[in-house]
């Protein structure tokens, strides 16, 4: 396929996906490179770009739109987490769900989104093409491009189901005391947020495993502070202080 005309079908989305969708058509991403064109009428469309968790009010209109498309190829591209599975809104009262899917179950893959409509249509005997799921909240324009490219066979699929048996009892032991680590982590979350806190803490643990003694550790910490951002440095200092206090308090286990 070198030509994909798409019709945008919003089934109650928050607009996040819409603007990223628009973005995918604009200069930096330019989906027109693959022949993607946004059309104004479902009659012209090869595919619908569905966004949103499928509200009951939009359900009937959405159904009409898909029925108005030429029967082939009728591809559905579900953009965003809501269209893929109902997203955060999945069991709200105005959201359409097939009765057998329930609203409080713990099935997986999680049900919801445009899938509910596609299955209804298939039950009615309407032809519906493949459904490409592009999760994301909202997906970046690159993700949308990737999804379309995957549909066109230009790229390889990169995901597969993962199942792990976590049978072992080794849960890993950080170089500093676990209780201290958790306390510091919670404290730092309030100072610079969890994202940077995790990184500083990791850096510190790296320094601890490298340092032979307290003096060397202090040198490494000083070095770190001189190289890094002031805020990160301050956090590092806080960690070191707490660490030493705990250590001198005789908390270290053998």
């Amino acid at each position: 396929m070198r030509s994909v005309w798409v019709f945008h079908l919003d089934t109650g989305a928050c607009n996040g996906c819409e603007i990223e969708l628009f973005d995918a058509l604009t200069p930096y991403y330019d989906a027109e490179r693959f022949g993607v064109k946004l059309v104004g009428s479902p009659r012209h469309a090869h595919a619908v770009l569905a966004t949103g968790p499928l509200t009951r009010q939009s359900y009937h209109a959405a159904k009409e739109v898909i029925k108005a498309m030429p029967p082939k190829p009728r591809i559905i591209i579900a953009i965003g987490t809501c269209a893929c599975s109902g997203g955060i809104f999945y069991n709200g009262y105005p959201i359409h769900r097939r009765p057998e899917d329930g609203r409080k179950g713990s099935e997986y893959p999680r049900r919801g989104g445009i899938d509910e409509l596609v299955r209804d249509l298939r039950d009615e005997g309407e032809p519906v093409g493949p459904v490409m799921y592009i999760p994301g909240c909202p997906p970046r324009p690159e993700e949308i491009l990737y999804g379309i490219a995957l549909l066109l066979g230009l790229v390889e699929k990169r995901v597969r189901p993962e199942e792990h048996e976590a049978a072992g009892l080794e849960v890993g032991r950080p170089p500093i005391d676990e209780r201290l680590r958790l306390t510091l982590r919670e404290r730092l979350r309030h100072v610079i947020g969890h994202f940077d806190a995790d990184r500083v803490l990791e850096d510190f643990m790296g320094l601890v495993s490298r340092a032979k003694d307290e003096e060397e550790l202090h040198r490494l910490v000083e070095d770190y502070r001189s190289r890094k951002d002031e805020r990160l440095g301050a956090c590092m200092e806080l960690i070191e202080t707490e660490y030493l206090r705990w250590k001198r308090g005789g908390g270290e286990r053998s």
Partner: protein
Amino acid sequence: MIEGADEKHVREVCERFGERIKRVERIAQNQWLLLVDKNDVREVVSYVINRKDWGETQLSTMVGTDERPIRGRFSIIYWLSLNGGEGDVFIGVKAYLREEDLSYPSVTPEHPGASWYEREVHDLLGIEPEDHPDLRRLVLPDDWPYGVYPLRKDFDYTDSPRREFTEEDKYPYRKPPEGTVVHPLGPYHVALDEPGHFRLFVRGEEIVDVDYRLFYQHRGIEKIAERRLTYDQVNFIAERICGICGSSHAVAYAQAIETAGGIEVPERAAYIRTVMLEIERLHSHILNLGLACHDAGFDTAFMHAFRIREPVMWLAERLTGNRKTYGMVLVGGARRDFLDYRKGLIEKTLKRLKEEFREWVDSTLSTGTFVKRCEGVGVLSYRDAKRWSSVGPWARASGRNIDVRRDHPYAAYRDLDFKVPVYREGDVLARCMVRAEEVFESIWIIEQALDQMPGGDILADYREIPARKEALGYVEAPRGEDVHYVMTGDENTLYRWRVRASTYNNFPSLPDALRGNTIADAPLIIASMDPCYSCTERLQVVDVNTGRVTVVKEEELVRGCCRWE
């Protein structure tokens, strides 16, 4: 003087109504709750709204709550605000309704801006505003059974009852006026990014009147939040009320909870929130200006607008981890800090944006065909803007001098300097100008905020949020004032959360702006309001007719226009 009326305006209201104000409660530094009898609501509300000398008075939100489990009654609160330099005051007019008699005199005949609010409590709680001119269904889907009220506490949030849905008892649209034809717009129309159904009643190409059915995007967010989510989780659903101005909603929600729970937000977090809100405004305004060009058939300007906007998205991604749903807000502060290199990124991006955006504005405004399409089109008069309690650039382009950032400073805005552009023309061009100027103001605000950013923590440590506390949180979103009302509950969950997005106050005034224009301009005018249906959560509109003499039969029409429904 009634106890608690410790503010000039509140005192005046109390003096004016005397005994009829049963109680005054100051629930926050700038929020007063006046308890009145349900039959006095209309009078008190219209008194405040109509005080000409109180500047831009405004119906900011209205909340209905099922308080039966706590007090055995329902309650309604009309939240009014004073704006335009009159003082930082929110006045809530509250009344209780007994379950046996849920009717009370509607405010709509006095102030049309109350129309949607009253229709909504009618839909969701079964409260009956008497003399309301139009009590058609507003929020709930067409196939929702009558007499089932999802926001009542005895309704389970996952229930989704249906009724048999026939062609005949679809939404009762108004009959087209004599000599007009219906031109439907939406729900799926390229120029409306989101579904909403408009019926434009047209004579030739001229729009005579408009009817609409919206709320295709009603997702039951308030109910989900009250039942399924904890205080911190609600931040993330608040952010997804709207994908464009989500951060504003998250901040408004968090501020409401913080006010209710007496949580002090660290100063640094307030600054971080401010910067993120302004970054959001930048991308939103440029987006809207671009879309306006697109609707006017000026695709090159649309493309360039998106090109210069893109670095702002990249910036957001590097600051927060996501281009759009920043996830930066938790109750009590922010989630990621601005490290030095991140500040550097902001400065670099803004510098480039300022130049490129100026060029874009110059070249777009020098395109004759574009200006021709915008000038004098879709005029909303000051009177109408005020009548409907409009907000944001939509109201400011019509001469309303309101801006929550200045009138009710929150986050770090008290410390920052900025202008509020106001135009009087009220046309599409004026709205574009307001947005363009606000882009430069936002850049200036961010520059100041980065300069003055204090140190310290970014997230407050708090123990517990007390139950049954009420408060408002408000933010000037890119589209105008967002107001969130919360009542806290037990077990780390909300008792009531009422979200009022800016489009909710702007939308009802749209028919006034559309009347007298042509169908060709309809998408452009709608876009110039920058509607966010998903914010509003529920919406649909109607349109115009063809210039043929033959009158299209009603059934044909329905067939024609319902094709995309």
